[in-house]
């Protein structure tokens, strides 16, 4: 069986790439996608531990994370559409007004 270190390393790599994406990208949709990537990295960890500890709780929790990610993506994109319709831009650093 694979030592678990490999899975931890993989999810770490994905997490880091996601973090870079969130920090460096100006386009809000790409930022949202990077957040999805981070959530995915977390899922890998959960499933890896649930497989190695033989307890299925990890997979159940991964399911909840997928549900939460779906909710978050839906609302996030809703905000982006509403924002885009008023301000015609999707760049993160132009979202500097609390009320327009």
């Amino acid at each position, binding site marked *: 069986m*694979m030592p678990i270190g490999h899975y931890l390393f993989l999810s770490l*790599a994905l997490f880091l790439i996601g973090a870079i*994406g969130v920090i460096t990208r*100006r386009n809000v949709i790409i930022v949202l996608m990077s957040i999805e*990537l981070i959530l995915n990295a977390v899922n890998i960890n959960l*499933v890896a531990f649930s497989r190695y500890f033989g307890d299925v709780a990890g997979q159940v929790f991964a399911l909840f994370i*997928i549900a939460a990610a779906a909710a978050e993506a839906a609302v996030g994109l809703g905000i982006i*559409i509403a924002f885009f319709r008023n301000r015609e831009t*999707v760049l993160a650093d132009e979202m500097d007004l609390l009320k327009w």
Partner: protein
Amino acid sequence: MLDSVIFYFFASIAVVSAALMVTRRNAIHSAVFLITTLLATAGIFLQLRAEFLFSSQIILYVGGIMVLFIFVIMLVRLDVPLPQIRSRLQKWIALFVALAVGVEAGVVLLLARKVPGQGLLIPNPAPANQLHPNTEELARSLFGSYLLPFEIASVLLLVAMVGAVVMAKNRTGAP
């Protein structure tokens, strides 16, 4: 032997397409690469004998959320490449920080290899054929001990649905 081949195959695809996703100019291209990453992680779930999660990941993530992303990118006409990276300096700082964290964690994992059980006090994992059927096991715990979070998750989804619809609704009044 077969397990490690599958794992390295999916892991490499996941990491490479994740990297590509973050660096692409065109939003649709990065969406497509995110889809490849999600499919690769689904493959890893399969390798970890989590079949139900494999199919729910594909149905929910790839079939649902990513289609939503592509819809928004198409509607928002975002595919025109915009100046993507903020300031050059910030990019380098982020890369440096990520590299540092990566090296540090890598060292920890490599050192932990010698300690029995990977230093995480893991009993030896159960071989594949003695595993209980994944779906029944998942269902038993989901509707058994985790019933309350299940209901809360459904309420969360409902709230998100209503929120998204209200937000994105084209207020006919608006000019």
